[in-house]
């Protein structure tokens, strides 16, 4: 982002785009704040948060947005919209409705899954910047080998997602599962969204493990194993301690605990 003088016009423009599609700003914890009004001249944004600190929806007015130093006092929502204006580089491209990719397949302006990409992703809904569980993740496809074949794998996926498999043959098992799901739920495959990740410096396996864990896509048959070279990811390490001391009982630690535990704690 540029200096303080630039930040509000850029932010206002981005908020205006977001107000049209998808209509909201999402905080890192997943709370949607619907954009009701963006007043560029006054430096004011009015949002309707679906969940305030009390748990109920409420309307929030952010003011003083013409001044970046003052605006930073507005906390988590403002940080979220600032990230949207000047997002950390993520390496993600998309999402594009599959319909658009197919219709624009000979359009040189249309971004296309690159051969050396490391991850592709299918979701039910649109996402912004980086995919999150809110977009209804359906499938994460990893490219763990050295060959540069992501374009081909996305093509395999699309072929089967559109039903071009049968007779005991096919191209992509995830695409076939998605096709069956589309049939069952009367969702046209061309309405699904596709994005991909490029990061030449990243470990392919670690990246696949990380995004599988973050998105928990519905149609990945098995979670990928930990990377042999780098060991468990941060998420896997947190997962490893989950339940490591056995199963607890309701209220074991706090209110109305096991009498022996409670007595020991009080007498300590």
């Amino acid at each position, binding site marked *: 982002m540029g200096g303080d003088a630039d930040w509000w016009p850029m932010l206002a423009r981005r908020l205006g785009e977001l107000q049209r599609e998808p209509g909201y700003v999402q905080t890192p*914890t997943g709370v949607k704040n619907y954009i009701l009004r963006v007043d560029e001249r006054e430096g004011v944004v009015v949002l309707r948060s679906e969940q305030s600190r009390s748990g109920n929806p409420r309307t929030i007015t952010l003011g003083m947005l013409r001044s970046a130093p003052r605006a930073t006092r507005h906390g988590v929502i403002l940080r979220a919209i600032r990230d949207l204006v000047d997002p950390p580089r993520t390496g993600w491209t998309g999402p594009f409705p599959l319909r658009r990719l197919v219709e624009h397949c000979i359009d040189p302006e249309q971004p296309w899954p690159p051969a050396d990409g490391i991850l592709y992703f299918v979701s039910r809904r649109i996402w912004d910047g980086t995919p999150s569980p809110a977009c209804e993740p359906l499938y994460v496809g990893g490219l763990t080998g050295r060959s540069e074949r992501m374009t081909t794998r996305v093509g395999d996926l699309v072929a089967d997602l559109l039903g071009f498999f049968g007779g005991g043959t096919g191209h992509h098992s995830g695409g076939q599962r998605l096709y069956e799901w589309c049939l069952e739920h009367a969702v046209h495959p061309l309405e699904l969204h596709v994005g991909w990740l490029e990061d030449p410096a990243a470990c392919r396996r670690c990246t696949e493990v990380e995004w599988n864990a973050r998105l928990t896509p519905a149609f990945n048959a098995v979670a990928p194993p930990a990377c042999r070279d780098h060991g468990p990811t*941060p*998420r896997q390490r*947190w*997962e490893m301690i989950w339940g*490591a001391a056995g199963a607890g009982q*309701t209220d074991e630690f706090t209110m109305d605990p096991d009498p022996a535990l409670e007595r020991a704690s009080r007498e300590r």
Partner: protein
Amino acid sequence: MRVYVDTNVLYLILRPPPASDPLLAWVREWADRFASGLAVAVVTPLVVDELLYRLLLALARDAGSDNLLADLRQPNSDVIARHGDRAASLVSSVLALPGLEIAGIDGDAARRALEHVRAYRLLPRDAMHVAAATSAGCDVLLSSDPDFARARAAIRWIGPGVTV
């Protein structure tokens, strides 16, 4: 976001309650947040002490001890001999987690804790947690114990059912 993590949260991660307990979803959500880097978990030696002690009790209880306090206080307690290594290993795994930071407690925090006892009618340990959390620059204090809500002038408490 820097989150001071009370002992009960880490304990619930190590010993998750049954699925019917609403605390399960709450603690799972926070574990996911820490794992994905959305929040930094901050603990102090107070938490380490409490977690180790609680785990010893839980492991001893699982092994069938019916008088934990007496067992713990006897000279050369068998509880420590039998469960100390396991409990220490579990706590060690927690402290090695990515996105988890150990902060210190200094004399200023101890003095502030005394003020918190008076101002918010907190138990001494809870007052010390509040003082330690503010010293460590935490934005919120995460705990299943609603007593911390009384210290809202010092730090924001987040517990089950309290949204971020």
